């Protein structure tokens, strides 16, 4: 359901942006922008890639119910 390639691309971009701000002394507004967008993006893409995935035979079961308590 989650696009793996997109997550990898976002993880790489956010990692490079954060590392660039750590290594090079950029203007404050650039660092703030990278921090506000880059840190949550890094956590989100890293989390979506590393979270446990359902087994192939269980995939359908996971989305059978529309929401909790249905």
């Amino acid at each position, binding site marked *: 359901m989650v696009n793996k390639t997109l997550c990898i691309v976002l993880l790489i971009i956010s990692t490079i942006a954060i590392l660039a*701000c750590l290594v090079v002394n950029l203007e404050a507004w650039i660092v703030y922008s990278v*921090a506000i967008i880059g840190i949550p993006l890094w956590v*989100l893409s890293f989390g979506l890639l590393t*979270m*446990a995935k359902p087994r192939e035979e269980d995939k359908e079961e996971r*989305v059978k119910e529309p*929401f*909790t308590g249905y």
Partner: protein
Amino acid sequence: MNLMADILINVIIAFLAGSLLLGLHRKIMARVQKRPGPPIIQHLLHSLKFFFKETSFPKTVSMPFYIGIVFILAAVWIVGVIVGPVSKDSLLILFGVYAVYKIVEHNSGSSSGSPYGKASCVRAVLSAATELPLFAAIVLVYLKTGSMNIGNIISYQSANGPLAFSIPLAAIMFFLLLLSKSPYSPFGITKDKALISGFETEHFGFLRGFIMFSESISWYVMLWVFLTLFFGPLTAVGYLIGMIVITFITGFINAVTPILNPNHSVMTQITIGAVCFVGTVLMILI
């Protein structure tokens, strides 16, 4: 120090300290209710555990919104860390942070398609009443100090003494906000257990871990702002003691107070806010 390193260190401190304080909060509530309670480190362990758990996406979710709102929540509280501990900037930006947090509560509930989330989403609109005492407190701090800048307010207090002693009713109003944002709060109508977990009900697995990460940061930032605004320049030890004391007080209040229904919650907050606002204005004039 490099600015990005400063931000990263503060975000990590906020997450770790916030998690431990929320764990302490649960422990205090449990001890007041004569239960052993989980270990203090449990909230932190839960956040990390959920982070690697399987996340399934219910059929009814609006997918980009469902994931995007979790991202926005984290972004909002990273702004809080930057405006607060890192740059000590304007209070108005922090007010904006709280306003966006309300939008996150609202949209997180509606994006899931779950009736529990939707009921919580409606209550999030009602609970915006919390913003009024916050805005009033910020206005009063401005009237007293003549500045919205946190750095300037710290300087004012180092010269004139803590604001908690000169405008105590404004401090009470801000404390009301802390109380309403604390877990199991009497004012926590969006997370009423009748709604399972409210707007978070359909966010589980990794996404719940991410929400817990942001909530830990939010608790730390709110305590930091309160202590900085009303107790002046503090050392790291001062902040630590202050945060533990406030967590203890809110834990005690939440342990002995049932959750109010939405009408009572809103009216109580507005009434306390109005009384404290008028009282503080009178104190400033007299």
